[in-house]
């Protein structure tokens, strides 16, 4: 497939219908709907237990592609197994795709992900990162940003910051596996789908991380799903970049970032984060942004 130039070029078929029981305005399900436009019908999705597991709910399914419900620990190795099975059958034209949450990716399934990546199996791994264990009620993962209120890091008198841990730099971690890695945002669908397309055309492992904007967990009106996805990029909370063969490329460059406060104010999970927490979060963002700019178009990991 040729790279997509603008929104009007995005294919006009849907392999994920409506009628499922995910929340209204769910970012991760929008991400899957969009990804399938490039992946096409010859796709097997391996899904680790999480919010997206609710998409097919017997006796109804919104899916028009194959789907494997998987344990949270090992979606990546199940995908490698599916690829080997297809190879044994001589089937070459199937996409094997993992669609997994951040809890499954950063925490519980990390060993299986790392093993599959380092062996460079022909698998596209998409992590939809809603920055918590969404399906079980929004507990903290190692993808949860500093300052976020979650079930296990509640903001209160004793702990005004909420989550005090700084999230894992997952792209860097995946970059050292020498595979194709990229971040993506729903507010930049052309960039997202071209990254899926790039991964599809590779003969090896790819890791794509989509910010899984989640109205329910982040506590905002679902109408702002795209607005918040866009602000995350504009504020530097979710920079768009790729690491390919250990080299970094920034995909969206800005002379100046917007202050993180603009992003935080729209979401209940950051409500009443005290000023020193906002300052700390801003300094973490500035540090990361400076690092990305320093290594842009250079060897990064």
């Amino acid at each position, binding site marked *: 497939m040729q790279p997509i130039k603008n929104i009007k070029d995005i294919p*006009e078929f849907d392999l*994920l219908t409506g009628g499922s029981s995910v929340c209204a*305005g769910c970012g991760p*399900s929008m991400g899957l*709907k969009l990804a399938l436009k490039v992946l096409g019908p010859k796709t097997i999705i391996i899904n680790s237990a999480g919010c997206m597991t609710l998409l097919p709910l017997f006796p109804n399914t919104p899916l028009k592609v194959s789907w494997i419900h998987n344990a949270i620990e090992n979606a990546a190795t199940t995908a490698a197994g599916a690829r080997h099975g297809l190879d044994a059958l001589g089937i070459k034209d199937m996409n094997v795709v993992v669609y997994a949450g951040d809890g499954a990716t950063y925490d519980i399934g990390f060993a299986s992900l790392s093993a599959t990546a380092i062996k460079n199996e022909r698998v596209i791994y998409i992590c939809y990162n809603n920055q918590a264990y969404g399906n079980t009620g929004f507990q903290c993962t190692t993808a949860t940003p500093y300052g976020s209120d979650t079930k296990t890091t509640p903001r209160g008198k004793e702990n005004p910051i909420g989550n005090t841990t700084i999230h894992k730099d997952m792209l860097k971690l995946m970059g050292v596996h020498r595979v194709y890695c990229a971040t993506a945002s729903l507010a930049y669908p052309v960039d997202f789908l071209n990254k899926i397309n790039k991964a599809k055309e590779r003969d090896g492992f790819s890791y794509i991380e989509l910010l899984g904007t989640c109205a329910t967990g982040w506590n905002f009106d679902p109408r*702002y799903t795209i607005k918040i996805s866009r602000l995350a990029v504009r504020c530097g909370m979710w920079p768009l970049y790729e690491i390919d063969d250990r080299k970094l490329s920034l995909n969206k460059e800005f002379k100046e970032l917007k202050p993180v406060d603009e992003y935080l104010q729209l979401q209940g999970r950051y409500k009443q984060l005290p000023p020193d927490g906002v300052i700390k979060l801003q300094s973490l963002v500035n540090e990361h942004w400076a690092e990305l700019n320093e290594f842009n178009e250079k060897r990064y990991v």
Partner: protein
Amino acid sequence: MREEELSYKGIHGIPVILEPGNAARVDRSSWRLVRPVYNKDKCTMCKICYTYCPDSAIAWTKEGPVINLTSCKGCMICVEECPTNAMTQEKESS
């Protein structure tokens, strides 16, 4: 509902769904507090609403977007993102 009316059948007692995408018939209209309303005169056919509808409740046709009020959950992303206000919102009556 009787077994023969369902769109799935058992294989050795394990039920399977026979029709991919049968969820499209599930009615989610009761989830809505507001509904999107389309005004063709203001539409520039930019496809933004179609791209962003998470529930595939907007079909794209030669005449532009067509909203399916069975699947629409009333998230209002299409209304918020439409650049020309061709999508507006209206309260559900009941």
